[in-house]
């Protein structure tokens, strides 16, 4: 399948989001607070990896794109690359991202663009990711004093990365302004149920973050890429 140039730009952006977040979630393997949650996070990571493979294949060779690109060539959101932190940070990142991804894929699935078939399948996966993040946000926000404090810290720390999600992407046939309105409504509703306030501070402009779509990434991303790519780069073309 050949894609037009704008469609390739969009596929790379969405594919990199999925790939990078998948790797972050996979870092929990062997470290999650309980076995059941480790499997849950790994399942979400595998869903995202499946999406990434389809999307990156639209742009070229998936392995080359994943393992041989330099940091500046990645087009993922800075939110997706943020380190796992404590469990609350991972859940806050999941809440922000999966709400966005689910709303976006639902819109793409309903349209007739090049991403409709992929989005139609992925929207069911992302619905589950969103539910997982919401369930945990409710429990951490409405749990102990410590869990509430940690969740609040995480939501606030990642807030400045959320404006970037709604920048227009060439080739992505979605109403970003409407998406942002729906996203804010949804996140506000979940936080209200969890007894948590919506974080304050700018999400765009000012000292907010976000130029991942232009290839600018945050400090921890280079280290993550080094870990993700070193095997492929050390043994080019290795198979088993």
């Amino acid at each position: 399948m050949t894609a037009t140039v704008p469609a390739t730009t969009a596929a790379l952006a969405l594919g990199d989001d999925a790939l990078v977040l998948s790797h972050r979630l996979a870092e929990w393997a062997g470290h999650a607070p309980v076995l059941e949650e480790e499997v849950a996070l790994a399942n979400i990571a595998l869903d995202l990896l499946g999406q990434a493979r389809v999307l990156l294949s639209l742009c070229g060779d998936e392995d080359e794109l994943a393992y041989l690109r330099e940091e500046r060539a990645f087009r993922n959101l800075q939110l997706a690359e943020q380190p796992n932190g404590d469990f609350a940070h991972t859940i806050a990142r999941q809440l922000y991202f999966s709400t966005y991804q689910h709303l976006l894929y639902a819109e793409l699935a309903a349209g007739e663009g090049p991403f409709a078939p992929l989005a139609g399948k992925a929207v069911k996966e992302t619905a589950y990711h969103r539910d997982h993040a919401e369930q945990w946000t409710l429990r951490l926000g409405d749990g102990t004093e410590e869990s509430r404090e940690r969740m609040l810290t995480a939501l606030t720390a990642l807030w400045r990365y959320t404006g970037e999600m709604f920048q227009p992407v060439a080739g992505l046939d979605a109403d970003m302004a409407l998406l942002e309105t729906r996203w804010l409504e949804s996140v506000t509703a979940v936080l209200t149920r969890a007894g948590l306030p919506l974080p304050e501070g700018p999400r765009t402009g000012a000292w907010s973050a976000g130029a991942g779509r232009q290839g600018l990434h945050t400090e921890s991303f280079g280290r993550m890429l080094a870990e993700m790519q070193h095997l492929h780069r050390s043994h080019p073309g290795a198979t088993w």
Partner: protein
Amino acid sequence: MTTTDWPLWEVFVRSRRGLSHTHAGSLHAPDAEMALRNARDLYTRRGEGISLWVVPATAITASSPDEKDPFFEPAADKPYRHPTFYEIPEGVQHL
């Protein structure tokens, strides 16, 4: 893995319509809603099921190994309880 205070849940999976739910295993979860989600992730990720039950393990009353003989032994030596003494008439199909 650290230990948690989360209760144990028993998981039952129905593989397809018309069959009963079958015990698949157990897991820990803080509440029923999370138990259901954990069960989905642990036991149905390879197309094993279309329906799930989770039951608090404490809600299950099990027979004791000490009662094995009075419970089950008397069934062993009564072959007349088994439907094996019928002559099947000729021409009966699907039996």
